[in-house]
Structure formats: C-alpha cells, structure tokens
C-alpha cells in the first residue's frame, strides 16, 4: 500500500498523505449535465419556435375553432374552414398504419432477435434498417406503382387513391423503424433471463412471452412511438396515394369501413400541400392553416399520452397472478415460430421488391461517372454536387443532433421523475410528429428571413435537427429504462458522481440504442425534401461546396429527386430521378453499415452483465 498517487481531495486509507484542498477527482465530468440539459432545452426550444410560429399565425386572423372541429367543409374561397374531415383522415390513417405495422414489426423483431442465429440475423437486421433509410419520395412512387393498384382491386375504388392506401404505405414506412428499435430493445435483455426461463422447461414461445418481452417492453414501445410520430408527420408519401380530397367523412358508423377505401385528406397533407404558400402570411386563411398545425401537435401529444398510459412507473401495473396456460404447448410453440418467421417474409419481400424497382429504374446510378461528375442543366450529367450537398447536410445535422438528442434522452431516462419523464417524452414525440414542412416554414421565417441567412446549408441542417433529435432521444431513454438497477447501484457504490455515472455507465450502456436512433433519424432526414426547399437547397447552380453560411445554398439529392419527379417532361429526367434515389439509398446504406459495424463491437464483446 505504499503507492502514493496524486489523489488529493479524496479520503482514502489513512496511509496516504494528502493535501486538504483542491479537487483531485480524475474528472468530475460536470459538463455532462450542461450537455444533457441543453438537449432537453433544444427540444423545448424547437417546440417553442413551432408554437410561436403557429400561434402568431393563428392570431393573425380570427379562427372559428368551433367550425374547425365540427365542420367538414374546407373552402377558402368562401372562407369556410372546417377541419373535421382532416382530423378524421389523420386518425384513420395512423390507426391503420399502426394496426398493420405493429404486430408484423414486433413479430419480425422477435424472430430476428430470438429465433434466427446471429449469422443470419445480423445482415437481415441491417437490411431492415436499410428500408428505414429509403427516402419517403421513393415510398410514394412505389405506393403509386404497387399499392394503389392493390387497393383498387380490393375495394371498388377506381385508381385506388384512398385512406387505406395511405395507411398501407405508412405501415410499410414505419415497419422498419419499429423492427429496428424493437430488435435493439430485445438484444439488450440480459441472457440470464432467457437462461433462467429456458431452464424451467419453457418453450421458446413461452420464454419470449414471459421472460423477454416484459424486459424489452419500454424499448419496443419507444419504437411504436417513433413509428407513430413518423406516420403523423409524413407528408410526401401519403400525399401521392391518399387522394387529398377535402371534406370526406363517413356519414354513418357503418360507413366507416367504406370511407377507408375512398380518397381523403389528413392534417399533414393539407399543411404540406400548396395552401400555406397560397394563404400568404396573415389573414383568416393563414390563421386557419396555423390552427390546423396546432391541432396536429395536440393530436400527436394526445396519441402519445394515450399510447403510453399506465406503462410508466412499473409499480403502477397491478400485480396479478397469472393463470395456467399449459395447453397445446408444443403446437402453440410451432405455430408461433411459423408466424414469427413468416412475419419476416414481409419486410424481406419489401426489401427485395424495393431494391428490384430501384435497380430496374435507376440503373444509371451503377455507373461511377454518374456519381463523380457534376450535373449539366436540368437532367444531364451526373449528380456529384447533389451527393456532396447531401453529405454536408447530413454530417452537420448529425453533429448537432447527436449530442442534443443523446442529452435529452439521458435527462428523460435518468433525471426526470416518472411524471416529468412522461411529459418530456410526449413533447419529444410531438416534435417527431410535426410535419417537416412546418419546421421548414418556421426555419425559413426565423433563420433565412429574420436572421438574414438567405438560403443557407446551415439553415437546412438546423431545420433537419428536430427530425433527428426525437428519434435519438426516445431510443436512448427507452434503453436507459431497461437498465438493471444493480448496475446503477454498483457504479454509485464505487463513488462515482452523477455525471461520472452518466459518462461511464449510461453512455456505454445505451450507445448501441442511441446509434440505432441516430441512424433511423438520419435516414429519415436524408429523405426530407420540404424543409430543405425552403431553407437550404436550389435545384441548379449552387457550387459543389459552399464557402460561407449566409446566402450559401447547396444542391441535395432528395430535393433533386422531388423536383425531377414532379413536372419534368423529359424522359431522361425520370431516369435521373430514379438513379438519384438509388444513389441516396446506397449512400445511406454505406453509412448504415459503417455504424452497424461499430454497434456490433459494442453489443458483442462489450455486453453488460450482472
């Protein structure tokens, strides 16, 4: 014990001489809290900006709230602003999407994590995460090609534009998110739970149900919340298949089902459509649109609160003795195995189909020249500048959003009481569910106009940050909640301060989940068009890389695809749009694989146990 280390302030054994002042801790890591709280602050700030924008707009003209909630007639020409049909549309589409995506997504996640050997599961998991990276616009185009005809055959809908089609497209979009986040939560369940359950003679189905799922629940729920947020906030893909017909409501309860196979409108598609541009910046029309935005935010909040009711605070669940379920065990186990593995077929088929379509249509992307040469005019040449611009936007967004989202997740997971955590979580989901067009408009007013940045790549990145932050925050918080209490105790018992605990225990423990969140968030951001068009990108003529911040636009892949796929008459424009889509998917895939390699290192050798 003769070792004399410089360890002044601590009170070690009596044999160590030590000065009586100074702070000698290896590192107090106090910055942790500053960082974590600035994450939460960013969430609140975003919300404040959004609400500020919306409420100011609402105040700029009188809003007939009663009509907004009760009337289904929307006719700006006659100053009739009824939002009921859109509220109905939003609700119907989201319920449909969740009803379709959650069971399949969860089953697929269980299959991946509990049934398949790691050798098979790892690449499959990566591929499913890749699906989450496909830009919305591609989902929309594929919706037109595949899902509309399918619905048209199903109901007697000519064309197939309908709430149902929108629900299916959304289900397809959010399923990868649900699978990815759920697999993550499942793989965090310590092996000893499985071992203990298996050794009692349980079948795999019983082990999953009784020992694994209860542990993974909070994380899997986070996946659904994220899916819900994306479903509520998604515009472009819904846009293309919902028909956007105003004022359609079921006339009787019996009409509800048939209303699903008819065109409709959601709050998001209304807001992301051209009307905010036509409404000017004040007056009753603009006020009514802003009021719709407020309703949408409120809806997201209500859905979150409802979706998470009774699940925070473990003690809240009434302890109930379970009954015997020993009946047809083996058949039940077999059927479940088949169902769960079968659930994997759907995302699998999706992946293959999606890649097939992208390869068939966007084969140009396989030529390296296309990647490395600048574009010429509207649709000639390659897309070098668009690729560079997208990478710049994504990198900047990741740099800003990762610390903020991580911080917010840590505060939600460790610091807040159950009640506060729930409020914060709800606010976070609300931001995740905000249609990005609103973010774009708010950013346009605040950054581009008020602060005078003009079109600026940085403004674009800042506007994308709120897309990524909630995903990172929610996945992180979900993982923290599933952390065994013994780990926390062991760390504190070694004299760690709160911030050291966060740095050395919470962060390494949640890192894989956070990474998944970042990937999913960035993937979504990579496909965002609307906010970028307003704040950061031009279609043509920007330099490859900007030299400053003010008046420094870039070109980006998603907006390129969007513009080309809208109104270009030239056939080569369509080819280039699909080629760009494939490039975007490949780039995201590349980033994804890189990050997944990292994550595997953390999850494999560095697993945590007790």
């Amino acid at each position: 014990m003769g070792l004399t280390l410089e360890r002044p302030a601590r009170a070690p054994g009596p044999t160590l001489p030590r000065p009586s002042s100074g702070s000698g801790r290896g590192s107090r890591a106090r910055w942790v809290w500053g960082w974590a709280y600035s994450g939460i602050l960013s969430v609140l700030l975003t919300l404040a900006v959004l609400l500020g924008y919306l409420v100011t707009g609402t105040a700029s003209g009188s809003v007939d709230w009663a009509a907004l909630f009760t009337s289904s007639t929307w006719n700006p020409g006659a100053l009739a602003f009824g939002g009921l049909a859109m509220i109905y549309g939003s609700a119907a589409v989201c319920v449909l999407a969740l009803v379709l995506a959650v069971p399949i997504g969860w089953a697929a996640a269980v299959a991946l994590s509990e049934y398949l050997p790691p050798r098979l599961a790892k690449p499959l998991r990566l591929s499913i995460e890749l699906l989450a990276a496909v830009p919305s616009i591609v989902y929309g185009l594929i919706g037109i090609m595949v899902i509309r005809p399918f619905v048209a055959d199903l109901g007697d809908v000519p064309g197939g534009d309908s709430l149902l089609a929108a629900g299916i497209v959304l289900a397809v979009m959010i399923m990868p998110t649900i699978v990815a986040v759920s697999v993550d939560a499942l793989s965090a369940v310590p092996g000893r739970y499985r071992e203990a359950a298996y050794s009692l003679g349980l079948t795999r189905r019983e082990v999953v149900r009784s020992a694994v799922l209860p542990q993974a629940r909070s994380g899997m729920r986070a996946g659904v919340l994220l899916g819900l947020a994306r479903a509520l906030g998604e515009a472009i893909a819904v846009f293309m298949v919902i028909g956007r017909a105003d004022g359609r409501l079921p006339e009787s309860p019996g009409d509800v089902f048939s209303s699903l196979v008819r065109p409709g409108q959601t709050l998001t598609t209304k807001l992301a459509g051209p009307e905010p541009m036509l409404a000017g910046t004040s007056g009753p029309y603009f006020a009514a649109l802003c009021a719709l935005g407020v309703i949408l935010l409120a809806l997201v909040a209500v859905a979150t609160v409802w979706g998470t009711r009774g699940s925070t605070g473990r003690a809240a669940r009434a302890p109930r003795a379970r009954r015997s379920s020993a009946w047809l065990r083996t058949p039940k186990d077999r059927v479940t195995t088949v169902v769960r593995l079968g659930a994997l077929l759907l995302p699998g088929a999706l992946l293959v189909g999606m890649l097939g379509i992208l390869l068939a249509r966007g084969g140009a992307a396989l030529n390296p020249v296309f990647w490395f040469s600048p574009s010429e005019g509207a649709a000639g040449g390659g897309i070098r500048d668009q690729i560079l611009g997208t990478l710049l936007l994504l990198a900047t967004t990741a740099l800003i959003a990762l610390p903020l989202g991580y911080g917010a997740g840590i505060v939600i997971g460790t610091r807040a009481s159950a009640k506060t955590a729930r409020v914060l979580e709800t606010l976070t989901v609300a931001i995740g569910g905000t249609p990005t067009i609103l973010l774009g408009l708010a950013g346009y007013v605040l950054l581009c106009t008020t602060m005078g940045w003009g079109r600026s790549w940085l403004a674009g990145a800042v506007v994308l940050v709120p897309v990524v932050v909630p995903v990172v925050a929610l996945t992180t918080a979900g993982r923290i909640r599933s952390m065994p209490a013994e780990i926390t105790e062991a760390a504190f018992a070694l004299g760690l301060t709160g911030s050291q605990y966060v740095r050395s225990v919470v962060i390494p423990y949640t890192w894989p989940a956070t990474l998944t969140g970042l990937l999913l968030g960035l993937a979504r951001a990579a496909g965002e068009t609307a906010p970028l068009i307003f704040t950061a990108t031009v279609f043509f003529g920007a330099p490859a890389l900007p030299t400053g911040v003010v008046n420094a636009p870039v070109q980006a892949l998603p907006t390129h695809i969007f513009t080309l796929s809208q109104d270009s008459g030239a056939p080569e424009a369509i080819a280039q749009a699909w080629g760009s889509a494939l490039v975007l998917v490949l780039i995201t895939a590349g980033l994804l694989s890189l990050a997944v390699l990292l994550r595997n290192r953390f999850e494999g050798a560095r697993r945590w146990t007790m």
Partner: protein
Amino acid sequence: DSDAVQASGSTTVAPVASDAAEALKTKGLNITVATQGGSAGGISQLGTGQINIALSSKPLSEKDQKAYPDTEFVTTQIGADAVGVIITKEVADGGVKGLSKAQVAGLFEGRITNWKEVGGPDLQVFVYDKEPGRGTREVLDKFIYGNDEPPAPPKSASYAIVGGNLETRNKLKSTRGSVAPLSTGFIDGHPGLVAVPLEGVAPTLDNVASGTYPMTRPLYMITNGRPKGTVKQYIDYILSAEGQKLLPKHGYLTREQMGL
C-alpha cells in the same frame, strides 16, 4: 455567392431555366434555380426582393400586384404550354369525341358521374383535379368559370387531387374512366391517353398557336423592372433561337409556335 442571379418558382419552368443556366455557365454567368413554393412562391419572393427572377407558369394576377405595390412586375413570356382535358383511350374510343364547356364543368363539379351521360361507354367517371395554386388548375378554372370564383370541390367519392404532372399522368394511366387537366406535352408517346377536343377544337399546334384552343398557359420569367445586366443576358438567351430549343425538349411550346 451573392453575385449569382437567383431564379425561383414554378417546377414547370425550372427544368428549362436550369438548362439555360447550364449553357451560360461557360460564359461565366452564375445562376441558381430553385423551386420554392411553385409559381406563387416565386412571385412572393420576387415581391420581397429575395430573388431576381420569378419563374411562373401562370399569368400575374391583380392580387399579386396589390400584395407588393412597391414591385414593378415585368413579365417576359418564354414559351407556352397547352393544357388538355385528358381522358383514357377506352373512353375516347367509346364515343367521347369532344366535350363542351358545360360538360367539362359537369365532370369536374361531380354532376356527371358516368361517361354515358356525355356519349361515352357505361363507365364511372373518376376526376383527378390539380391541387390549388397549380397553373394547370387555374387555366382550367379560367376556361370553365371565366373570372368568377370556382365552387368548392365536390364531396363525391370519385374525386381526388393530384400534384405534379408526372403523378397526374401515372394516375390517369392506371385509373379506368379517369379525367384530369394536364399539359398536352406530357401525353406524347402515351397512347393510352387522349386530349379531348373542347368546344370542337382539338389542342393541335395550329389551334394552340392561333389561340382558338381555349386552354393555353404562358410560361413566364418575371422581374422587378426591366431586365438588366446578367439577368437580361440570361433571359435574352432563353429568347434566342438556341434557347428556345430547350422548350420542346421539356414538352412545351416555343414562342415561335405561339406566334410571338
């Protein structure tokens, strides 16, 4: 990069504007083209002085001028686009060889629900209307209602809204009995779609150029005051013989074709 010429607005005009800007790049001209907010967005940005050129696929309205009294809007027509009422070949072959203004109004207001009411096959009508603010839709409204305010869209189950021209074409092709307003340039090479004659006038080049076909829309570049300097160089290029070649490439009509 504040010395760059900034053009922004209609997605219809943007491809032409980009190709022209590309051609001028070699001459050292720096031009950016964006599509924020479509035609209406371009006009409002020009009004607030954020850009140099607004791209528009619809004529300026009095409202625009009123909204920005300090701006001296100067329009330069660079070409034109003929909007057709597009139906499917099945319906055309079934006997719909032309539509009157009243019949078009009946279709888009949801009063005519079966093609046999206008001499076609016994087939349900499915209407795709363009979203509000689209130049295409304004041209159709103008044809049907003149200067009157159009009524609210029908609540019929066979009515849906579409956005871009490609989306419109895709949906027309995949929906039996559908009808939609769409640039005629977009149905070239798509034998399943037919631009139906209106009031007995087919959207042929001659009819469009002579103005007898009722639904044409001009494509504009709008500036604040007369174009000067690089802006003028840019617009002049598009008006030149070389620049005009870009219009048919993207499915539009040249000034020459329009008799300008």
